[in-house]
């Protein structure tokens, strides 16, 4: 753009040199990023792909292993499939709940209520808590004996039925530990970035559409189903893709909160990679596990993009940038 308009004022001969100058400066400005891309992203990725075909423990010799690591993951590693299943379960619960939860809070903030800014700030606060701090707060909140949640449960039971309800020892319970981690993720996300993005999306829906629908006698449910959802679907798609990528990689909460326990009930895939790589320094196999995740995530994201064609609605405007 710049080039074509600017050259109009210049003699034709200068055109080529201007083009070269522009290209030169573009690459100068891009230089740090290109170096970073090669040295810290593409190079390392390629290296870890190669490494996935080697047996390599930090500080020892590399030895070529062919497909051994890959076969080991799918057939011999007793933690592999359970951790995959657990991660899929975790993702399947956390992503829909957090995406629809965030849509719900965003819609609430879009009602033109008084104090909306105040509510928004309150809803957003959890998202600011450092994950490590959040996990420790929740460990204490959900402590079986001394936690606030069980105390409230007990009192609610006592008040309603005359007999206190005894809550589980969440993080020490093989059934409840994973739901407790899901709860932390939801707390961090329902009012977080996703909500802000939804809110912007909702505010972008022309008010006339709702008015026209109301005149035609559409109730609030119909308006939600036929106007809000289609109009918000690109945002929904964006949020879902990012939420999936985040949930599948969950690490901190499981590492800090439960260390994968009790009895491996929270041994998520991210933790499995971490333990293999930085617990046992089994770098070759760790790279294989990381690449399996990468490939699975790429396929999954690709499928999401393909599937999105059938449910994501882009209003007439161009989507170039």
């Amino acid at each position, binding site marked *: 753009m710049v080039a074509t308009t600017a050259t109009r004022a210049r003699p034709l001969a200068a055109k080529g040199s201007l083009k070269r100058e522009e290209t030169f400066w573009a690459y100068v400005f891009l230089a*740090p990023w290109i170096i970073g891309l090669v040295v810290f992203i593409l190079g390392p990725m390629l290296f870890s792909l190669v490494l996935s075909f080697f047996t390599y423990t930090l500080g020892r010799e590399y030895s070529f292993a062919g497909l051994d690591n890959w076969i080991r993951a799918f057939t011999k590693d007793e933690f592999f499939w359970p951790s995959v299943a657990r991660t899929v379960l975790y993702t399947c619960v956390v992503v829909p709940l957090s995406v629809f939860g965030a849509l719900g809070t965003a819609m609430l903030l879009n*009602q033109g209520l008084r104090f909306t800014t105040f509510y928004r700030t*309150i809803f957003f*606060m959890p998202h600011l808590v450092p994950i490590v701090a959040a996990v420790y707060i929740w460990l*204490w*909140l959900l402590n079986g004996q*001394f936690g606030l949640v069980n105390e409230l449960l007990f009192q609610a039971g006592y008040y309603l039925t005359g007999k206190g309800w005894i809550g589980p020892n969440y993080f020490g319970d093989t059934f409840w530990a994973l739901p407790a981690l899901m709860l932390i993720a939801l707390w961090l996300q329902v009012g977080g*970035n996703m909500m802000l993005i939804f809110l912007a999306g909702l505010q972008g829906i022309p008010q006339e559409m709702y008015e026209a629908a109301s005149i035609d006698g559409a109730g609030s449910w119909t308006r939600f189903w036929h106007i809000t959802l289609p109009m918000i679907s690109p945002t929904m798609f964006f949020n879902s893709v990012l939420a999936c990528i985040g949930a599948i990689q969950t690490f901190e909460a499981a590492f800090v909160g439960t260390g994968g326990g009790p009895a491996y009930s929270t041994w998520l895939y991210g933790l499995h990679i971490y333990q293999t790589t930085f617990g046992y320094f089994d770098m070759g196999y760790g790279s294989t596990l990381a690449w399996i995740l*990468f490939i699975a995530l790429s396929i999954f994201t690709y499928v999401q993009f393909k599937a999105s064609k059938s449910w994501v609605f882009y209003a007439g405007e161009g989507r170039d940038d």
Partner: protein
Amino acid sequence: MTDHAVTARHPVASSSARPIHLVTHFLGRFGLHLIAIVIGAALMMPFYWAVSSSLKQVQEVRQIPPIFWPAVPQWENYSIVWNVRLFTNWVTNTFYLATVPTVGIIFSTSLAGYAFARFQFPGKATLFSLTMATLMLPQYVLLIPNFLLFWQLGWLNTYLPLTIPFYFGGFVGGFYIFLFRQFFLTIPHDLDEAARIDGATFPRIFWSIILPLSPPAFATAAIIEGIRQWNSFLLPLIILNRPESFPLSVGIRYFVVSPDTQPKDHLLMAAAVLMTLPVVLLFFLGQRYFVRGVVMSGIKG
């Protein structure tokens, strides 16, 4: 039924349906406020419990049934935490590790964003797609080989791996490049063109035209990345193993694993509150920019 009851109380307007609408309207408003307050209270509960616990006496911490608010708030718990050996080190380290990489990532990605927003050059489309694709990378494919790279370079146990890569866009540069590009695209082209005709060089245009118009974009990136770095856990965890060089996120575990048998939950909560405070403060200072940046990154699927 209710219709009659309501209209009966408003005989003046009984001929029209308006009062009913007003009543349901206010009930609806009231209901929405109620929902917002309930959600807000539920989301605030952990904050309340953390603060309340952080102010308890040792013997109150593990009392059954739990007490909701300490009899006498123990503010000195915070000074106890502050005086725990190495705690001030961790605070200083965290400030260092939140600012130095943030400056780097802003420097490298704003330049790249400028190139993508304003220049036509061969390879642009490919490079831009590649940049966007890095946003989808799981961290582990980068973590393992980079760990080996830092190990080969002898960078383990130093701050180099936690700072230097960010001067080259770090591992998440794509996000900020997109952010800056989106912002720069909103600056009218005429300004650069006029400067070009006056003979300004491209760096000069960036410095004298783009930069002065972009403080919001820089504030946004600085706040988002600053918070992200402040909270960063996994990278420092694998790179650092001397307690005196830990950031807070890694060091805070001291309160859990220390061999001392006295309950430390109140101190842990105080540390968690202390760790959260600067983030909340930064958010309040730059809420406008923060919200705007998040929205800008997500508005185009």
